[in-house]
């Protein structure tokens, strides 16, 4: 086991998470290496201090205020249940009305003109409000897609223009004639995408699979719940984040792939040219190595202990400096060769894709539809009035049913209380 290995395993050793062989190797190195023993001791001390945290007492009013919050919550829940009961009873009553309405039309053959104009009005209403009527469903879908597209393009322009422009520029550089000039350059690419997805798991898994297929790796990832519990199935919405690394040449294709998985809310691209710093560091290391060589020569010629110690000290310092800078270069290499992408995924409900009138043409269409619907609605009301008067006798029966339903509801409420 070398020192680096040791360093990585300290934490696991402390918690007894190593297998027997690793443990033996670890302990062996602990005995052999002074540096690592120091590291180990430091860690033990830090964790000892960490563990010595005193537990804070609960604030005095904690339980009381929690209780009152809970009671409020309970009341809310109860009224919700009650509301549901009332609503469902009313819905049942309405259903009775509608069914008898249809029954009347079919069996009593109310005058033809009325029926026709009503049929005419119905799909129009359907188109704008419920979308249940065949033909209008299609139109609805169309306009939905349309808004989605419009949103998309809006997003593209919204996201940090400078970064994007920069990204596109270098991309064209890569593909164009100038790519030779770029060849020796050290550029760290990174990106961030915020996505909304209705199929959280699919999106999450696709990203992870794609990264694996592209010889990349996931540095960290996690999911958590956010917001309120979904009313329908009790499941909570999730948010996830993936911090991934892909080979530099797969950066843009991976970005495109991820963007295709959901609705892009925002994105950021960043390209940092570290060529100069890289070169500086390389030169610095070369200088240090020259210095090291010189120090060794001096060490050979040194004649007293004091001198030897001093030179050795200096030598150690130079060596550490070299190691540190080499490590920096290594890190840079990894950053350059493997671009990083942060993806934040937010699970959203399907219903969130409500139609938004953010397109002018759509607005106009909507307006027209609105006016024509209003006209038809007026027509419809007129016709309905005529119709209602015609069927007044039947209405009386319906009224009786409604009253009965109301009495039922009231009795139910009383029972509850």
């Amino acid at each position, binding site marked *: 086991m070398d020192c680096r290995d040791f360093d990585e395993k300290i934490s696991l050793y402390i918690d007894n998470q190593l297998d027997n062989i690793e443990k033996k190797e670890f302990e062996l190195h602990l005995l052999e290496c002074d540096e690592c023993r120091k590291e180990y001791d430091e860690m033990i001390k830090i964790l000892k201090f960490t*563990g010595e945290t005193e537990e*804070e007492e609960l604030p005095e009013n904690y339980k009381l205020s929690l209780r009152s919050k809970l009671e409020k919550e309970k009341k809310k829940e109860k009224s919700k249940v009650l509301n549901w009961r009332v609503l469902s009873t009313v819905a049942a009553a309405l259903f009775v009305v509608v069914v008898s309405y249809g029954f009347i039309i079919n069996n009593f053959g109310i005058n033809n003109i009325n029926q026709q104009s009503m049929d005419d009005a119905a799909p129009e209403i359907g188109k704008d409000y419920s979308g249940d009527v065949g033909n209008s469903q299609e139109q609805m879908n169309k306009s939905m897609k349309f808004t989605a597209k419009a949103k998309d393009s809006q997003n593209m322009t919204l996201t940090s223009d400078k970064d994007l422009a920069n990204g596109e520029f270098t991309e064209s550089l890569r593909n164009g004639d100038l790519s030779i000039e770029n060849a020796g350059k050290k550029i760290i690419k990174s990106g961030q995408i915020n996505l909304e997805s209705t199929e959280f798991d699919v999106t999450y898994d696709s990203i992870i699979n794609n990264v694996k297929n592209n010889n990349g790796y996931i540095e960290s990832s996690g999911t958590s719940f956010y917001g309120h519990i979904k009313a329908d199935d009790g499941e909570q919405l999730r948010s996830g984040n993936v911090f991934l690394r892909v080979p530099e040449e797969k950066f843009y294709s991976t970005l495109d792939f991820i963007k295709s998985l959901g609705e892009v809310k925002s994105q950021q691209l960043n390209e940092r040219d570290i060529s100069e710093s890289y070169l500086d560091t390389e030169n610095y290391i070369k200088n240090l190595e020259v210095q090291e060589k010189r120090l060794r020569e001096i060490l050979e010629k040194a004649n007293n202990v004091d001198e030897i110690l001093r030179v050795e000290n200096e030598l150690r310092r130079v060596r550490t400096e070299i190691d540190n800078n080499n490590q920096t270069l290594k890190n840079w290499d990894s950053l350059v060769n493997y671009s990083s992408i942060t993806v934040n995924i937010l699970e959203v409900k399907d219903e969130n894709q409500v139609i938004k009138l953010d397109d002018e043409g759509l607005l106009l269409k909507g307006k027209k539809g609105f006016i024509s619907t209003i006209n038809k609605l007026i027509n419809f009301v007129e016709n309905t009035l005529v119709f209602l008067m015609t069927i007044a006798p039947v209405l009386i029966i319906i009224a009786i049913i409604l009253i009965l339903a109301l009495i039922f509801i009231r009795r139910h409420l009383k029972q509850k209380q």
Partner: protein
Amino acid sequence: MADNERKLIKKCAKGDLDAFEDLISKYEKKAYNIALKILKNPEDAMDISQEAFIKVYKSIKKFKFQSSFSTWLYRIVTNTCMDFLRKNKLQVYSLDNPIKTDDGEIEREVKDNSNSTEEMYEKKMTKELVHQSIDKLDEIHRVAIILRDIEGFSYQEISEILGCTMGTVKSRISRARSSLKEIILEEMEQNDISIV
């Protein structure tokens, strides 16, 4: 899971608030302390941990008895805290400032003192420093340290609380500790303190 707890949970599912109070009384303090360490502020810790308990109450019907109730509860607490942090990211950053100037001044006084008190004093300093440094960790690493080294959860429990694999837990704790150590050593160098 204790039979008693199972019974209490079933009562809570029917909306029994007394049973709920009974059920969580064992976990309240720890939940509050976890929130306090993550959020670094008593008011938020109280609000958010209570919000978490309300979530627990509302969703207790969905508790499946497959995992332990306590890890399920702490999972909700941790998630609620993390969500809160995410929503208030900017504000939290501004709270992050350590009190560096104070350290410097106290340190000067220490040098006049006799050896034994100096030792004691520095020891206290180091402990304080460790906790200040924990506050400086980024949230994912901070949570790992809080759960493992302050609250003493096992690796298995942490993987349930955070909803990630054992492998992730291992590497996260390991990385969290390394970066904690880095921060501490840096701070000590700046303030000329040594480990006691």
